[in-house]
């Protein structure tokens, strides 16, 4: 089963340039305490511009992706599923309210474009994927295919 790949192997990757001890420690901490690291990553306007925090849940019927994307409009967000990869892109053009009185108004949201790709298992019903956007959170529900649901078989004991 494929999961979200947001960094390469948590341990040493041969071939890559030699990471410093500090980098190694940071990565180990990221793996051990994902919540801490996500706080540091800080979401939309954090150090990693263009990324946003994503959660992935599953229950017996479906996978659910929740992405924190505050301040977009529904039509700014696109969700695509291709090749087992769910891509969420939000693109907002500069939203400047024409204000003749305050020319130096600094309160406009600049054009921003954020995107995230999430690898998902292949056993999904692709035409039943649904997405909603509420309170700045995008929720994508991806139902599992029938055969991968755990089946209960009653065995008669004689």
């Amino acid at each position: 089963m494929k999961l979200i790949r947001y960094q390469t192997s948590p341990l040493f990757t041969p071939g890559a340039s030699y990471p410093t001890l500090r980098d190694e420690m940071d990565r180990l901490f990221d793996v051990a305490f994902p919540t801490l690291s996500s706080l540091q990553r800080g979401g939309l306007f954090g150090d990693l511009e263009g990324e946003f925090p994503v959660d992935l849940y599953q229950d017996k019927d479906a996978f659910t992706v929740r992405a924190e994307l505050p301040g977009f409009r529904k039509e700014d967000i696109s969700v695509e599923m291709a090749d087992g990869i769910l891509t969420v892109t939000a693109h907002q053009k500069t939203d400047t309210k024409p204000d003749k009185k305050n020319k130096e108004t600094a309160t406009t949201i600049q054009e921003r474009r954020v995107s995230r790709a999430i690898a998902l298992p292949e056993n999904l019903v692709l035409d039943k994927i649904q997405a909603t956007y509420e309170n700045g959170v995008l929720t994508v529900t991806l139902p599992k295919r029938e055969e991968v649901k755990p089946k209960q078989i009653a065995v008669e004991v004689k």
Partner: protein
Amino acid sequence: MNLLAKKDPRVSTQNGPRRTIVPRYTVDETADSFVITAFVPGVDRSALETLVEGDTLTIFAHRTWTPPADWTAVYRETPAADYRLVLELDHRVNRDAVRAELNQGVLTLTLPKAEAIKPRRIEIKG
């Protein structure tokens, strides 16, 4: 901070002492007001409280959504914490006219400048 937390019953009673984080925010200045923009994704209008008390502005935003019991988190990046932002106001803010607006997880607070600091022309008499 501790004193404020004691005064705020929601922090200590509801759902036990829940962790809070400071939301990302910006403060901008226009000709006649200050504008605070805070990012509080996952917060419903009913779960948001903005309090002006003396010189302190407190924003408390409770995350309304919790995963159903039979869901397992495969991967989590968002912190399961409420938002809390405490800012000091100075004499330039008109406390009686603070406006708040919540739109898709973005809280915009408009704090008009106090009349006293706006430039005024003084007529010379006589």
